């Protein structure tokens, strides 16, 4: 019995930018986490925080600058062996944000679902049964009718369900869902989240749910990873991270989310400073410019992820000080 399906270790991706491409954006910096079967892990952050880069690194759409993506005991981040990659890609599937552009408009739903089966040579004997089974699983009933439809005959939510069915076709162990609901109508978003939760239970899948929507992360995820400027700044059980956040950035995010239940809310402090801190970052905390509780050490030493509470870690000198620093301050 494995407790980890896929592990990411020190994953780092730098992109060259600026005049003469001499600068580097640290889109992902030393990112480590594990995806467990039957668990949804949410990766949250604002645009430019690096969350989609991490998703694409895992899906092997990018090759990392350094670090490892370990699946089944093997590092797949740098492999170029076709067969190994093909197998990996059948085990780790991706769902994209835009269900309008991720399906071929000239092909039927049946075609979209049989392609992966043919490429990976699965169920070749009873392809139609498998297609119907998949449509059934994602709630597109009656499957016979939906199999014949073209993408333009489907609503956004139905298209996203087809995209999920396509990902499920090859019986993956891991699904990377990059903002799967943000382009859908609000009334059908919950349906997709519920589907993810059901699939997690039934198929023991490991989900990485990439999103900017904290409330949906809390609703569906077991664990949460918060990214800021290319780094994971906080991680832990979803409910705990969102109810008792340690990192000031997580606190700012939570205070910013519109929430109908708090009509009279405290105003957030508007601080100048933008999330562009990932270009050639100097030593020190990347949030220091915007941080209301920064101390002297924050602009000098880069904080590491410290487990301040059981299973709950943050990258913050103040709220999650490293043991060594803690001793110093007591001395």
């Amino acid at each position, binding site marked *: 019995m494995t407790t980890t399906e896929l592990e990411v270790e020190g994953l780092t991706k730098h992109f060259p930018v600026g005049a003469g491409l001499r600068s580097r954006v640290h889109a992902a910096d030393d990112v480590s986490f594990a995806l467990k079967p039957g668990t949804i892990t949410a990766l949250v952050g604002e645009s430019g925080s690096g969350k989609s880069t991490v998703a694409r690194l895992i899906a092997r759409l990018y090759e990392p600058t350094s670090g490892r993506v370990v699946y089944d005991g093997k590092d797949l981040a740098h492999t170029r062996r076709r067969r190994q990659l093909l197998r990996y890609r059948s085990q780790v599937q991706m769902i994209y944000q835009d269900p309008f552009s991720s399906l071929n408009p000239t092909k039927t739903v049946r075609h979209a679902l049989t392609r992966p089966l043919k490429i990976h040579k699965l169920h070749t004997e009873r392809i139609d049964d498998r297609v119907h089974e998949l449509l059934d699983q994602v709630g597109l009933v009656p499957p016979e009718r939906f199999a014949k439809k073209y993408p333009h005959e489907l609503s956004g939510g139905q298209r996203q369900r087809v995209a999920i069915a396509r990902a499920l076709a090859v019986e993956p162990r891991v699904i990377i869902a990059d903002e799967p609901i943000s382009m859908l109508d609000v009334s*059908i978003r919950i349906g997709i989240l519920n589907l993810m939760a059901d699939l997690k239970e039934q198929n023991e899948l490991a989900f990485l749910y990439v999103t900017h929507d904290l409330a949906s992360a809390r609703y569906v995820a077991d664990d949460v990873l918060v990214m800021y400027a290319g780094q994971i700044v906080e991680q832990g059980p979803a409910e705990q991270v969102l109810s008792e956040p340690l990192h000031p950035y997580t606190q700012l995010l939570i205070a910013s989310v519109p929430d109908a239940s708090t*009509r009279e809310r405290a105003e957030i402090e508007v601080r100048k400073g933008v999330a562009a801190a990932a270009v050639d970052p100097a030593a020190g905390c990347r949030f220091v410019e915007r941080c209301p509780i920064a101390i002297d050490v924050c602009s000098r030493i880069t904080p590491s992820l410290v487990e301040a509470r059981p299973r709950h870690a943050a990258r913050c000198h103040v709220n999650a000080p490293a043991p060594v620093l803690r001793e110093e301050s007591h001395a």
Partner: protein
Amino acid sequence: MIASVTATQRTEQWRTETLVELKNLSVDYGNVRAADNVNLSIARGEILGLAGESGSGKSTIANAIMQILRPPAHITGGAILFDGIDLTQKSREELRKFRWRNVSMVFQSAMNALNPVMRVGDQFVDMMRAHERISKRAALRRAGELLDIVGIDQRRVRAYPHELSGGMRQRVIIAMALALQPELVIMDEPTTALDVVVQREILQQIKTLQRELGFAVLFITHDLSLLVEIANRIAIMYAGEIVEQAPAAELHSDPLHPYTVGLMQSFPPLTGPIERMAGIPGSPPDLASPPAGCRFHPRCPHCTTDNPELYRRQTTIRPLLREAAPGRLVACHLVEDQTA
């Protein structure tokens, strides 16, 4: 303290005075009716929230008030009264003067509407000089003051749009919308393309400015939880119709229309217990062939054959927007039966 009390009283007074009134407004796109028989009023100094899913007709309403509907869209019936005067009867030249001076608009992608090869300040000058006799120098000074109001350094009048972040560009547009002190600012998903922290900052600013300057806001978004926070009153649109209208707090605590109830069930909370939510089954109808009767009936949990008489009405007769309680309007056969 006394000053603030009188200010509130003044605002209260304003809010009873109607600024804009839509009367039986219908807008067609070719043979598709995007807004159907819409009645809606906006009072002076109030923030009216308009919520609905994509394709429900909320932007059509905004464009109709601004009189910027383009073919194939055209108004097929009804009137848009602004201060009692019907906008649909105005000439082009009258409308050109009316826009920005009386009503201005901030779009979702407005930050991309700035001219990329013109300094921000010059774009203010252009707009102001199109509407009033003002020297370049005075207009630039006003531009600086306006930027200051929305929290941007005055010196940025010399900046080009690409030198500003998305949030700052959106603030520039808001400043521009306020430049001629219009009575109404239409904000169509003004913060949807922005990150949550930036969204929060801009919402705070909009609220503060609105309190200080007293303009009315028509705030359009699909994000109901955001509206409950910012708006005084909320109107809910579904498939081209307004199905419910209520003060924001009441809509949140006691939604009456099953669609509103479903929408409330579609936003997971950030605090409190996590329960499995239902959302709304099915998807919004195709407006080219909307369902007969109540347009929401195919998705409505209360539309069953258990009550044949009610079912017949739900599937054949369009419910009218009626007063269910003081200040609360609902278009629903079920609510009608309960309040009758």
